[in-house]
């Protein structure tokens, strides 16, 4: 009997070297990739998110957990032929807005989204509004995430949200924003985005909320 408790524990503790073996053991016993991901691995990441929000663990621990998760996903990927945690929750396009080169927060959100079951298209930093729209269309994304650390990014956050809402994707794609410069009021009222998240764990919860995964 594969030790699924050990698998969850290994993800939570960020044991990147142990996770692939434990995943393989579960696969060898005939457990389906979807079951392993959805019922065990993602559960572990949920626990990581909760502990982070309760300040029981800290950013580096969240990062190594996400990496351990991804090491496990690497084993499963060839079997299901998709990126991320199967990408079962749909595609999110992520980027740092035009004029801003900060990547740490955005990459942390990507890591957490991927390990929670989303497929993520990373547009990088300094991304113009048109590129967000193009990528969302091309990848049939359900959600676009904007990161902005500088107050100079404000007009670009606004312009990017507007570009998405005014495009042919209007109604088909939601927009969430986060980053040090942004306030919920500015994001929600002034930019009319669909959601604001103050950190990576909140971003995952928001993404699920916006797309109807409770």
């Amino acid at each position, binding site marked *: 009997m594969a030790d699924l408790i050990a698998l969850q524990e290994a993800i939570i503790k960020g044991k990147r070297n142990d996770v692939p073996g434990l995943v393989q053991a579960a696969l060898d016993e005939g457990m389906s990739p979807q079951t392993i991901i959805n019922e065990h691995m993602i559960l572990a990441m949920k626990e990581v998110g909760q502990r982070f929000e309760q*300040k029981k663990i800290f*950013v580096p621990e969240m990062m190594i957990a996400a990496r351990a998760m991804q090491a496990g996903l690497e084993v499963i990927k060839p079997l299901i032929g998709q990126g991320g945690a199967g990408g079962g929750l749909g595609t999110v396009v992520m980027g740092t807005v035009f004029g801003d*080169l900060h990547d740490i927060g955005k990459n942390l959100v990507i890591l957490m989204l991927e390990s929670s079951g989303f497929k993520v298209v990373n547009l990088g*930093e300094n991304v113009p509004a048109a590129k967000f729209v193009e990528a969302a269309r091309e990848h049939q994304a359900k959600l676009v995430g904007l990161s902005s650390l500088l107050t*100079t990014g*404000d007009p670009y956050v606004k312009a990017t949200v507007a570009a998405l809402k005014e495009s042919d994707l209007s109604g088909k794609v939601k927009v969430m924003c986060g980053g040090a410069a942004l*306030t919920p009021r500015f994001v929600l009222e002034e930019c009319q985005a669909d959601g604001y998240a103050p950190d990576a764990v909140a971003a995952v919860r928001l993404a699920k909320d916006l797309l109807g995964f409770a």
Partner: protein
Amino acid sequence: MQTVIWSEKKRVVIGPDQPVVIIGERINPTGRRRLAAALEAGDMALVRDEALRQVRAGAQVLDVNVGVSGIDEPATLILAVKAVSQVTEAPLCLDSASPKALEAALGAYTGKALVNSVNGEEAKLKEVLPLVARYKAAVVALTMDDQGIPRDVPTRLAIAERILNEAAKLGIPAEDVVVDPLAMSVAADDQAGLAALQALRAIRDGLGVNQTVGASNVSFGLPDRTAVNAVFLSMAALCGCTCPITDPTVWELRRALLVADLMLGRDEFAMQFIGAFRERSEQA
């Protein structure tokens, strides 16, 4: 090399043979809801409060940042600069990502300010350096450019050098450029602290300029942030940081810098350290 800035009434000298100059960071609404709300309402009482508290705690220069989403930044920055100047004599570090706000604040400020900041991005060099030259101010130069924030030391050194060259073309001398080699969070990259310290050293040894760091960044995402910041600050002082941007009202941080000065032979007969200790015991 000495960087000298001043307000109407006070002159501050930053240099490797001087005690560390603390640039007080608290007038900044990022992550501070109350201050953000006060600034949005145009209420400067809290700004004045923060100015006084920091100067009493040993800040010699005050950073003034009013970057709240959607705010009229030029107008608010002028208000804040005037409010701070009413209650303290400390020279100011005018902090904005918006060249318009910087220009407005420079126009409203009496003295020689420190402008925060320029970096190696083409647009920034073009927009900010001419302002610095026109108002004969000093400027903080962040070692990042259009390619992003470099992780490695040689690239940071090269960007600093390039900004110094561009500044020199406009008649801004090297002593009026204070480099910030960008200390990133060690929570996201456990080599980030070492890289920042090595960059400080390389820039000091290679260019001889004064340097600042935003010390609060390094501890982002970690527990016991004050301890992390304090140890980093004293290490940074050793490596060539002469004017950190930090919170002097947190005693552990101020103490770390006082001890650093003492250990680096910049505190004659330990008078600064003893004086601060005594002042603190008397308050308690």
